[in-house]
């Protein structure tokens, strides 16, 4: 039997296995265990959750490898880690550590203001953020095997995530309805490769799994994302900045499964303690918005 490892099918396939699940930000092995016990499908290992990155300011970089490895050793579920946009050496280091997925993330300070990482050059799969269909297709053409809408990380405010998943899905519906001879102009408008535009127009969906991220703080937020067409959710600060992280984590897992059952969502949402404190978009100066990073 001839065997080939790290193929497109296995890269994209791991994201397919995560569908209907919750990926949680964790900063210690203990938090990773709480997340796994609560039913997370994967954890994102990082030094500071986005709300702390936002509060601290300065340059946010890849996490200390020893901390990432300690989290990989603590849990049996997949472990993801973040590299800066365009910082392919951070990605090389994360691949050498053996992480299961790399998030080329706008939550960290970008390292390149023109180019993203050439993700085809790696054996490890990548997830990237997007605010609209064109951005998603550019990341996929660079080799991203999974997408997530960006939202505005570290705010506990779902409004940007809603804007982005609605934008991506509305553009997908529009593209699906176009004539073949209209796809050239559509590709130009989207600033995306024509072949990929053709494929997406034909199928009416992205060729990779698409999660929602950025601002999810309650079970209802997760269910809203799912009803709007998310295939799963990332929760960053929303778990470990809440009053009772284990309970909130489990409730968000349950809500992601039963996203279209209001009676169960009511049950799931009871008595969880305080969600993370939120931030309104108006109070964030433009230069401190994370979602606009990436091109």
């Amino acid at each position, binding site marked *: 039997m001839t065997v080939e490892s790290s193929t497109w099918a296995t890269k994209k*396939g*791991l994201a*397919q*296995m995560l*569908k209907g*699940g919750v990926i949680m930000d964790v900063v210690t092995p203990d938090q990773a265990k709480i997340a*796994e016990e609560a039913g*997370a499908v994967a954890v994102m290992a990082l030094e500071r959750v986005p709300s702390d990155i936002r509060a601290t300011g300065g340059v946010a970089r890849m996490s200390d490898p020893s901390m990432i490895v300690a989290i990989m050793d603590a849990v049996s*579920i997949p472990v993801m880690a973040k590299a800066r946009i365009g910082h392919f050496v951070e990605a090389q280091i994360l691949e050498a550590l053996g*992480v299961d997925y790399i998030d080329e993330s706008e939550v960290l300070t970008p390292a390149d203001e023109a180019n993203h990482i050439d993700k085809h050059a790696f054996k490890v799969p990548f997830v990237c953020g997007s605010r609209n269909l064109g951005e998603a297709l550019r990341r996929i053409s660079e080799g991203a095997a999974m997408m997530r809408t960006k939202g505005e990380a570290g705010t506990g405010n779902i409004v940007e995530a809603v804007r982005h998943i609605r934008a991506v899905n509305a553009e997908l519906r529009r593209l699906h309805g176009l004539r073949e001879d209209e796809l050239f102009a559509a590709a130009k408008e989207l600033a995306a490769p024509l072949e990929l535009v053709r494929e997406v127009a034909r199928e009416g969906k992205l060729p990779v799994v698409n999660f929602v991220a950025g601002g999810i703080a309650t079970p209802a937020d997760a269910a809203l994302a799912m009803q709007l067409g998310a295939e799963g959710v990332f929760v960053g600060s929303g778990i470990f900045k809440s009053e009772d992280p284990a309970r909130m984590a489990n409730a968000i897992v349950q809500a992601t499964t039963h996203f279209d059952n209001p009676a169960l969502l009511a049950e799931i949402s009871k008595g969880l303690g305080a969600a993370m404190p939120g931030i309104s978009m108006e109070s964030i100066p433009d230069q401190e918005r994370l979602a606009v990073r990436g091109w």
Partner: protein
Amino acid sequence: MKIGVLAVQGDFLEHVRTYRAIGVEAVEVRLPEDLEGVSGLTLPGGESTTMRRLIDRWGLRQPILDLAASGAPIFGTCAGMILLAREIVGGEAPILALLDVAVRRNAFGRQLDSFEGDLTVSMLGDGPVHGVFIRAPVIERVGPGVDILGRLGDGRIVAVRERNIIATAFHPELAGETRFHRLVATMAAEHDDPAEGSGRRHHPVRRERTAR
């Protein structure tokens, strides 16, 4: 006749689409009442630790055990195989314990060790089965009632059947492979009506007894 697909988490839609592609009705199962009227159940790929939580929380364990005890076919892929195993190597408690095997999670390593390749499953006929293995488990021990359906080149066991329970370490639903789903549908039809399909049924060849 309809087949349930456990839809608490994982690639359940890929299984639903595979059944629909062969003309079989498939329904998503999130709660015990969703199992009413199904003639078989598929447990998809995903994270077994997550599915365990959701099965326990919503009382799905006993209804699934009852369905299996009635003789309806239960088919698990990857995480689904872990849900079915009587023993999980390393000390985790079993989940459904319907299949007399010991399974090792993430047996090949991490995601970088995920792979795909062809293998032979003789009960499905001559054509190779294309196996996509994603952080896949393997079976390290099988009980006396378990038929080994497929092995890797190095001999590791990746597909088994014990009466009405079938499990694979890989994902037929990601590879356009419909023969396992056809087999499950045939078994489900026979379960509904034992006269149906008699003489046409796929009987696994009992092989490799000595390997145990």
